[in-house]
């Protein structure tokens, strides 16, 4: 077996040093009836080329984004990742390092995390950010819990524009909780969240651009929340939008949670992704997840360490701010490298390109008979109403080789009012030909 270094002779020699006759003697604590009392019936070890053939066969049964026109978004976005990013993250010293518990020999990871935290803080306009969470959805649940700790209040109000999966994750985390108010879906961008804030409210959660693509008024939400002593949690599933849209921190957000996948990370069928969490400086000790901080070494040289670890599970145990242990280090690295390659100039251009392509898409969709674009505002994503049930329509487009977006009914199966709605995204990878292929196929299907 190519991954195992010992020869049989070495194994025998080592058993001799240990002083046991065979390997089974080392498993003597295992109850006899549980030790190798079975035939697994699993295939035997296999050469690299056969494993590769098997995996390629599976991969070949999937329609990849590059196989045709692609408009799927709704929380995960198909962007270009520079070759440099993927090369660098596969370097041994990044890929195969553990959590930086020994800072003297982990300065690479630690300095990168410090840079990452700075990038996230700047991007969101917040004072501070952590070293990443699993993804945007679990990050939203963590932010909700953090708001409860900060305000010592319980009521949480989720906007109807919040990604339905995110809402469901918060529901699961707050199981049996009467203080969670989930407003019904608002595909038209309508919002009544301000009416639900009272002096028992810990936080309101508002996504912008929201699940349906609409841009929400963060300033108004922040003012309304703050007037009642509540916090505003802003959720962003498409971070590229921050290249064109005002930073939530500048508009009064208290906690910003984002899905960072769009920068540096492939679609990967849903994971691994990257949760970003940023907040105000005074809330730092209630922030979940790992944090990297600057310090000096014994000779006064600048260096970095994991800090404020007393918030974490390995010290606080049942009093920890969160049970999170592993985060998304390598995805954070990919994000940070891609963001460094972009810089302000590149990031702004990337955002403009996304918006420009989305504008073209919206205009083209408007021109398809029977299709109505619901958005007056959007960044790179929008919702359309079609005269036919959306799920079947998307299936028919897929048969034509076009991935035409996400039928809202897939995420909101119980809400019959959304049955004919489709959420579509355009990115820098969307071409005029893609848009033409989609609109002509739609026109034919709806004719």
């Amino acid at each position, binding site marked *: 077996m190519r991954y195992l270094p010992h020869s049989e002779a070495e194994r025998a020699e080592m058993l001799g040093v240990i002083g046991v006759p065979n390997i089974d003697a080392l498993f003597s604590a295992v109850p006899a009836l549980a030790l190798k009392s079975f035939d697994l019936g699993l295939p035997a070890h296999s050469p690299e080329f056969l494993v590769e053939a098997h995996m390629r066969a599976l991969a070949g049964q999937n329609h990849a984004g590059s196989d045709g026109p692609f408009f799927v978004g709704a929380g995960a976005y198909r962007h270009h990742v520079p070759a440099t990013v993927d090369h660098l993250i596969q370097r041994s010293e990044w890929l195969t390092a553990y959590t930086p518990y020994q800072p003297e020999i982990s300065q690479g990871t630690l300095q990168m995390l410090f840079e990452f935290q700075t990038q996230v803080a700047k991007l969101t306009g917040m004072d501070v950010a952590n070293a990443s969470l699993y993804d945007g959805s679990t990050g939203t649940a963590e932010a909700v819990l953090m708001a409860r700790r900060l305000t010592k209040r319980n009521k949480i109000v989720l906007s109807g524009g919040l990604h339905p999966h995110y809402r469901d994750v918060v529901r699961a985390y707050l199981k049996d909780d009467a203080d969670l108010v989930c407003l019904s879906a608002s595909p038209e961008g309508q919002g009544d969240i301000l009416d639900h804030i009272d002096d028992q409210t810990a936080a309101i959660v508002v996504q912008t651009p929201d699940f349906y693509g609409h841009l929400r008024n963060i300033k108004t939400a922040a003012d309304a929340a703050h007037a009642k002593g509540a916090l505003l949690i802003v959720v962003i599933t498409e971070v590229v939008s921050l290249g064109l849209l005002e930073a939530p921190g500048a508009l009064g957000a208290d906690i910003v949670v984002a899905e960072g996948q769009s920068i540096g990370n492939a679609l990967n069928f849903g994971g691994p992704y990257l949760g970003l969490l940023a907040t105000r400086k005074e809330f730092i000790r209630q922030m979940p997840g790992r944090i990297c901080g600057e310090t000096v070494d014994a000779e006064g040289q600048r260096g970095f360490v994991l800090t404020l*670890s*007393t918030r974490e599970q390995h*010290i606080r145990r049942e*009093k920890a701010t969160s049970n999170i242990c592993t985060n998304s280090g390598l995805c954070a690295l990919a994000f940070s490298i891609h963001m460094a390659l972009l810089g302000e100039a590149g990031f702004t251009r990337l955002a403009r390109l996304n918006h420009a392509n989305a504008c073209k898409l919206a205009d083209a969709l408007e021109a398809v008979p029977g299709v109505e674009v619901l958005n007056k505002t959007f960044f790179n994503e929008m919702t359309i109403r079609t005269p036919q049930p959306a799920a079947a329509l998307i299936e028919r487009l897929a048969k034509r080789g076009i991935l035409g977006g996400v039928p809202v009914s897939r995420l909101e199966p119980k809400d019959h009012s959304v049955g004919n709605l489709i959420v579509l995204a355009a990115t820098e990878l969307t071409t005029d030909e893609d848009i033409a292929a989609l609109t002509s196929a739609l026109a034919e299907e709806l004719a």
Partner: protein
Amino acid sequence: MTTKFTPDHEYIRVEGATGIVGITPYAQDALGDIVFVELPSVGKVLKKGDEAAVVESVKAASEIYAPVSGTVTEVNDALTGNPGLINSDPENEGWIYKIAIADAGEIDSLLDDAAYAELTQ
């Protein structure tokens, strides 16, 4: 003025109806450099044994329990900017909070100097 101790290494210095609470030199030494103190809010009503504050070192977080029942009347805000005061001067500048003692009888049940010294032998 008497100073009494708990087996959990809090001290309470009794000045009339008020007690000044902190952690003992022994405790600060065991914890190492204190990096953060979570203070109680003034007006908080505590029962004997309630968690009143948290002191954190780099590697450990320790709850500070109320040695007696009462109401928090004052907290040492200086610790917010300089938690190291607990290390450098735990019994004076490093005090944590003051409590209006509800039941003076509870004082008697605490350890005196000699008993605490024996405990930390």
